């Protein structure tokens, strides 16, 4: 009798099943932590893939690795634009890193899906007590869960070009919305074809959901907020008044979304812009001697004496599926509390060197004073940490923020009516 092709089917099938299962198990083990000979290797996924952030964080990790031979940390980096997708895909495939760096806006989504481990009580207490209130709020969910240590922390202020304001007859930045509208209108200049030579006020920023952060900074100046802790809309009449302000500004031609402030402000093409504090470093590099014309001030409120700002943060947390959660928290505690000879944490020093506010209050007090003495433009940015509204991190926060951006785009680009856009936005957010 002739033997059947490829041997007996039962044996072949069993071999295929075992091989497939082995491949799955091996691939699932590939991305996470490992341990051999009592040594633990933790993986740390972040978006610190470009200099100077990459070099700074690598220096800290190398320092830990040389002083903790039994717990080694291996860095894995992706671009910021790919960070959330990478977190998602790797976690689903069982290849999530032990330690995660994430934008706090995504924290609620990650926590709701069981990605984040709850920090030990001493870590949560340290964050709640020793960090800037806005930074701590940015990394704490509505239900009180702390996601991890706050890292990149920044606030929004009004950047203005002193020379352009002086040319229009103003010696001080605006301190009310009426002044803001007035100065924006007077500083706007167009050529005979209607092309902008100078945009009075920019209400957009680089990156994702360009219009959201300037709006939220203005919203904070009214005392109102964006989302309730559960993610429902908290938008009220004050929020509608901010939308109306933006609508008035675009109708008067004082603002446009076709000009990118990061490109045109350094070349004196934008008089005022609501931007995050990290921008100072870029402006110094791009403007060189002309940086002397740059001033910063709190984002004005509807009346004199009111001011607003949005604070955003990143955090480093531990994967709930990590096999070495305890070691991972040990590393993060060291990373965020190990002090250098100046008496500040090395993490705080690293963040401040890269134009960010050290989220730990003690670091900000020491480093902030030095940096502000060297550049007074940093003062409103550091001061905003005391009153800024933390960016919402509800599970639907990212979706709600995108809806807000689309609604503002309708106002700024399509000149859509404020009432209808506002009501549609609330309905869309509440549909979650």
């Amino acid at each position, binding site marked *: 009798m002739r033997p*059947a092709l*490829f041997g007996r089917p039962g044996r072949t099938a069993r071999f295929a099943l075992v091989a497939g299962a082995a491949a799955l198990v091996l691939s699932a083990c590939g991305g996470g932590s490992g341990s051999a000979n009592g040594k633990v290797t933790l993986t740390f996924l972040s978006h610190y893939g470009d200099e100077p952030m990459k070099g700074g964080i690598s220096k800290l990790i190398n320092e830990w690795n040389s002083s903790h031979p039994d717990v080694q940390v291996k860095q894995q980096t992706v671009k910021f634009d790919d960070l959330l997708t990478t977190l*998602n895909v790797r976690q689903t495939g069982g290849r999530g890193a032990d330690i995660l760096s994430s934008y706090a806006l995504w924290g609620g989504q990650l926590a709701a899906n069981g*990605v984040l481990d709850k920090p030990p009580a001493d870590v949560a207490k340290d964050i709640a007590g020793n960090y800037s209130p806005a930074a701590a709020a940015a990394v704490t969910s509505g239900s009180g869960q702390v996601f991890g240590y706050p890292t990149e922390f920044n606030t929004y202020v009004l950047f203005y070009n002193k020379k352009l304001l002086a040319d229009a007859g103003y010696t001080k930045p605006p301190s009310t919305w009426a002044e803001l509208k007035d100065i924006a209108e007077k500083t706007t200049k167009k050529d005979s074809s209607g*092309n902008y030579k100078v945009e009075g006020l920019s209400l957009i920023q680089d990156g994702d*959901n360009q219009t959201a952060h300037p709006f939220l900074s203005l919203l904070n100046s009214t005392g109102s907020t964006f989302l309730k802790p559960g993610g429902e809309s908290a938008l009220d009449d004050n929020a509608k008044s901010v939308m109306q302000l933006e609508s008035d500004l675009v109708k008067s031609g004082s603002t446009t979304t*076709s000009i990118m402030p990061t490109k045109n402000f350094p070349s004196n093409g934008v008089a005022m812009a609501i931007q995050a504090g990290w921008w100072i470093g870029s402006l110094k590099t791009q403007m060189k001697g002309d940086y002397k014309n740059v001033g910063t001030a709190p984002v004005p409120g509807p009346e004199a004496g009111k001011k607003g700002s949005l604070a955003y943060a990143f955090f480093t947390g531990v994967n709930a599926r990590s096999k070495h959660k305890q070691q991972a928290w040990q590393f993060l505690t060291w990373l965020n509390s190990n002090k250098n000879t100046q008496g500040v944490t090395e993490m705080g020093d690293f963040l401040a060197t890269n134009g960010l506010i050290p989220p730990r209050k003690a670091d900000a007090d020491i480093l902030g004073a030095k940096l502000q003495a060297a550049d007074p433009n940093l003062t409103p940015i550091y001061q905003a940490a005391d009153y800024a509204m933390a960016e919402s991190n509800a599970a*639907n926060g990212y979706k709600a923020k*995108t809806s807000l951006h689309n609604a503002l785009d309708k106002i700024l*680009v399509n000149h859509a009516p404020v009432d209808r856009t506002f009501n549609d936005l609330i309905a869309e957010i509440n549909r979650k």
Partner: protein
Amino acid sequence: MTGTYAAATRQASARQGAAAPPVAPRSRRLRRQGRAGYLFLAPSLLFFMVFLILPSLFAIFLSLSQWGGYDLTQIKFIGVKNYRDILNLHSTFVSPILVNTLVFAALSVILAVVGSLVVAQCIERLRFQGFWRFLYFLPVVATVVAVGNVWKMMYQPSGLINGILNLLHVNSIGFLSDPHEALPSVAVVQAWASIGAAVLILTAGIKAIDRTIYEAAEIDGANSWRTFWGITLPLLRPSLLFVFITQCIAGMQSFALIIVMTKDGGPANATNVAAFEMYQQAFRFGAWGTASAMAMVLFVIIFIITLIQLWISRRAGDDD
């Protein structure tokens, strides 16, 4: 002709069946050969099962569930809620997203089909046809990222196209910043990038047309225009139908070009199409159920449009 052949084959099989007595060893050999056949087919069947059937079934299941996308144990069955949420009049998925998708597909299909037809017809009359076909095929080889970025630069307020317009004393156009211009502007790029493949198919179709028909038309005194309308276009219908269907599907599934050129489907959702919204819902907002429901709706729409195209074509006699 075909019917005669089929009848003859049936008769021959019937004769064979009647004449041959049942032979057990032959039957066993046939069964063994059948098993061998299936074994040879197994790799491709397995491939389709793993990468097509299973994901499709999983997507159908997800469209009836709520899932954040991180932990498979957290999938929660919720029935048709996702469909109710996306297919109501207040949903942004219906308007502007589905509307944008259909407009984008229609614009890119019309531009690509008309453009490729004109180019194919012109190439047919030129020397060095291979060179021209190669030239028009180049955008198909280029990555979408490169194509999108080059056109993005040309569309800038200070870019090449606005520069030419300004030279002609025409004000700059916000190709990608004006919500009325953005979608057509990206559709032009989609059509331009896909024209090469369509040109190849149409030139092959034109070459397959019997030359004697053209010679007869020439003897009858038909001019170029009349020849095109009366001969080329009707006889190209099968190739045109193929181009039409593939361009239509590509237009409705377009994603990469949108994300390269407008990044977030803006301005004001003007370039947000179904495929981009699915990506956004799944990978950004962690709403995999909603994204899967959108995918199912898009699948049904593409399926219906393809059926309509085939039906129209069959009514016109292309199935001959």
